């Protein structure tokens, strides 16, 4: 049946041209950029095509009357690149805008710091023989640069400090803002009184250093978010919608309640709905964790994410979240999110201790100097000098820099962070809970007895399986050896609905399908959760067992996690008989099967009550509330969308190794954060007495502040060292994406 693809939801119109952004897979080199842009620009009607190599997105402008959006994608496919329509969500656009603002602030602060330093160094070096008028001239010039620069570049800190104060809390930005404002104010009055010391350089340099840390932090977060956005575009499902009698392919996101959609065998159900006609078996492992299939007929409610196994179904889309299961999950999810206590981050805890101590020290300095008979002016100047020198430059850099470097290390091992405080919470865990289906096992079933079957026979079966859309055939098709040239389907293969597929290979008939279709009688019955598919080639035949297989390195990872001193547990929605062999294979003693979402939460709450901190790793829709209830959560990229949104981090690999890497990197990052905090404390222990005694000249303040900042930054870079993964491999992010796509 001919069918059109409707991409109108992704296309924007402006001045008669259409605009669309595509996430492109497989862009690897300089030649790709030219090839993609060149071939699109040669098409009639295309006005502009520009590929952003950094985030692998292609922006196209074209005249819609001359060429359709679908043809653009087809043209890219023609030269070997798969492209997926992409729509930036509002938070990504907002972050891009803020990142640009931070860089502007950084530029202004950098300009101000450098030029003021130029003037300050002249004042310091000429302190003895410089005429007073010249010094005042330099100070006024400094003020002229510093005041507007600080007003602009200080905004991120002032705003954040104001928000914290209004919420009656203290964060690191409160002492920062106070320090900068007092330094500027004091310098201004000192300059007006022709005094020798002004701290304009310290104030602007402080802003410059802190903005460096913030801009880097933000850039790292944007980078991971761009990759996550591309993955979402690549994962986006299409649905076959009836528009009157005609079928149109539309993005699943564009479906509305009441739409009628066709779900063919092998398709994933694109939206929640009620079956109008047709009957089939559906695999709900992504929804409930159950690996045995459910029979559905007209009137049955089915959920998005299930895979249609045997028959063609027509579905009426219902409002999202109207099924009983979804309702329950939404309710549990709300409760779990509400119950989650707000995690106080290390930096904020440090700020809560730090700010009162520093401000009290400054106040005591003021009182002390007044008590020993200093003038009010001198006492105030010394007290402010204490505030300036303790201004938490090192302290405010200590944690963000480690955060940036650790997030980068995680990114390289294929883990994308969703939550900003994930690293700190990850470092604290002592128990890891796994879901079984799709987490410990691979999301798609595999041929379990592939090793017992003769290689050539299996290769033929796999190649024949390419001609079928049946999910079992898809499992068989995965057995094609990598790099073999026989990855094309056989010519003339015929699919017999409900039975199998057959073709003539070198004059001999080959059949793949049900045992009866292949003429094999007396097949041993198999355990539920396992399916049979038979293959016959001439006289040779084989019965293939298809079931969920463990991730390749699951056993190694379980052992490695135990070696890290973590307790392991399995909580599964699948039946006990299906969970037991997996638990045995991984040597995990505590496991429970047949759990409803509420029971998973209860199990996690019981552990929490014992004072344990739980990492939950899960992918199913039924895991979403448990992920929200746990201290921290991880999902594989194949997880259901609702679930992935709850997870604090997502890993891309087909292997389970990233779970271990994540914990190792997070633990090292937290150790470095603590070290950095101690370095900052030591710095203050030396600098504060100097300032209290009144020796903190602008020169000493500048040297101390930049010295401590550089020290903590260098220490943070140590988080870059490789995670020395048990398997010795760190999955490259791009590689993982490619592997998923093929």
């Amino acid at each position, binding site marked *: 049946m001919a069918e059109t693809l409707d991409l109108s939801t992704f296309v924007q119109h402006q001045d008669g041209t259409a605009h669309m952004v595509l996430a492109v897979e497989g862009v690897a080199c*300089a030649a790709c950029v*030219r*090839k993609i842009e060149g071939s699109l620009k040669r098409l009639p009607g295309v006005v502009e095509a520009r590929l952003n190599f950094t985030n692998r997105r292609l922006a196209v402008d074209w005249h819609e009357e001359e060429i359709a959006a679908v043809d653009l994608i087809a043209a890219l496919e023609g030269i070997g690149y798969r492209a997926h329509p992409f729509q930036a969500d509002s938070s990504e656009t907002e972050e891009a805008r803020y990142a640009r603002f931070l*860089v502007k602030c950084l530029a202004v602060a950098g*300009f101000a710091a450098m*030029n003021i330093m130029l*003037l300050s160094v002249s004042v310091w070096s000429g302190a003895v023989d410089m005429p007073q008028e010249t010094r005042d001239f330099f100070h006024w010039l400094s003020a002229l*640069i510093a005041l507007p620069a600080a007003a602009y570049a200080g905004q991120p800190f002032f705003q954040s400090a104001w928000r914290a104060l209004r919420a009656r809390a203290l964060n690191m930005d409160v002492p920062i803002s106070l320090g900068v404002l007092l330094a500027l104010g004091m310098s201004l009055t000192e300059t007006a009184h022709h005094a020798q010391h002004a701290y304009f350089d310290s104030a602007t340099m402080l802003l410059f250093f802190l903005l460096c840390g913030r801009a880097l932090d933000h850039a790292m977060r944007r980078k991971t978010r761009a990759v996550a956005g591309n993955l979402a575009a690549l994962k986006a499902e299409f649905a076959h919608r009836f528009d009157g009698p005609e079928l149109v392919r539309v993005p699943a996101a564009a479906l509305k309640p009441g739409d009628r959609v066709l779900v063919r065998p092998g398709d994933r159900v694109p939206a929640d709905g009620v079956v109008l006609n047709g009957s089939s078996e559906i695999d709900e492992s992504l929804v409930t964790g159950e690996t045995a299939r459910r029979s559905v007929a007209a009137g049955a409610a089915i959920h998005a994410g299930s895979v249609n196994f045997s028959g063609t179904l027509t579905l009426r889309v219902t409002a999202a979240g109207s099924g009983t299961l979804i309702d329950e999950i939404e309710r549990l999810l709300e409760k779990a999110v509400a119950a989650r206590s707000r995690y106080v981050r290390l930096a904020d805890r440090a700020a809560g201790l730090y700010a009162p101590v520093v401000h009290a020290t400054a106040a005591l300095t003021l009182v002390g100097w007044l008590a020993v008979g200093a003038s009010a002016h001198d006492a105030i100047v010394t007290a402010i000098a204490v505030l300036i020198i303790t201004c938490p430059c090192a302290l405010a850099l200590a944690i963000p820099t480690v955060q940036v470097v650790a997030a980068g290390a995680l990114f390289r091992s294929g883990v994308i962070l969703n939550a900003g405080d994930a690293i700190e919470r990850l470092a604290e865990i002592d128990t890891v809970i796994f879901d079984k289906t799709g987490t410990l096992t691979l999301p798609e079933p595999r041929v379990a007895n592939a090793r017992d079957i003769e290689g050539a026979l299996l290769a033929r079966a796999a190649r024949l399986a390419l001609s079928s859309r049946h999910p079992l055939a898809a499992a068989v098709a995965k057995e094609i050896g990598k790099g073999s040239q026989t990855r094309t389907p056989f010519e003339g293969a015929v699919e017999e609905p409900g039975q199998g597929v057959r073709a003539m290979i070198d004059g001999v008939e080959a059949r793949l399908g049900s045992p009866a279709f292949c003429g094999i009688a007396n097949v041993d019955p198999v355990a539920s959760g396992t399916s049979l598919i038979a293959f016959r080639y001439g006289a040779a035949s084989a019965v293939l067992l298809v079931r969920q297989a463990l991730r390749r390195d699951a056993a190694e990872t379980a052992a490695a996690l135990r070696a890290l001193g973590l307790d392991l547990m399995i909580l599964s929605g699948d039946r006990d008989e299906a969970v037991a062999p997996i638990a045995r294979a991984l040597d995990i003693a505590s496991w429970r099967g047949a759990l409803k979402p509420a029971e998973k939460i209860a199990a996690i709450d019981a552990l929490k009550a014992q004072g344990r901190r739980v990492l939950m790793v899960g992918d199913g829709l039924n895991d979403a509330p448990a992920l929200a209830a746990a201290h921290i959560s991880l999902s594989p990229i194949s997880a259901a969308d609702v679930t992935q949104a709850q997870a604090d981090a997502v890993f891309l690999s087909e292997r389970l190794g990233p779970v271990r890497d994540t914990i190792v990197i997070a633990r090292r990052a937290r150790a470095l954060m603590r070290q950095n905090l101690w370095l900052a404390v030591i710095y203050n222990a030396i600098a504060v007495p100097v300032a209290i005694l009144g020796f903190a000249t602008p020169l000493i303040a500048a040297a101390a502040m930049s010295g401590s900042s550089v020290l903590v930054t260098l220490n943070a870079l140590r988080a870059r060292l490789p995670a020395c993964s048990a398997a010795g491999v760190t999955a490259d992010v791009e590689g993982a994406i490619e592997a998923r796509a093929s």
Partner: protein
Amino acid sequence: MNVLIYLVPAALALGLTGLVAFLWSLKSGQYDDMDGAALRILGDDDVAD
């Protein structure tokens, strides 16, 4: 020392020019695709591919 009266403002003006140039380059999107720019320079405009 009178030379400072115009030398220092001249130095500041130069610095300010640099700042304005940077802000302009940021606004015109020159930092949106750092990796791509490094690769584009390898392409030949006058050679058909």
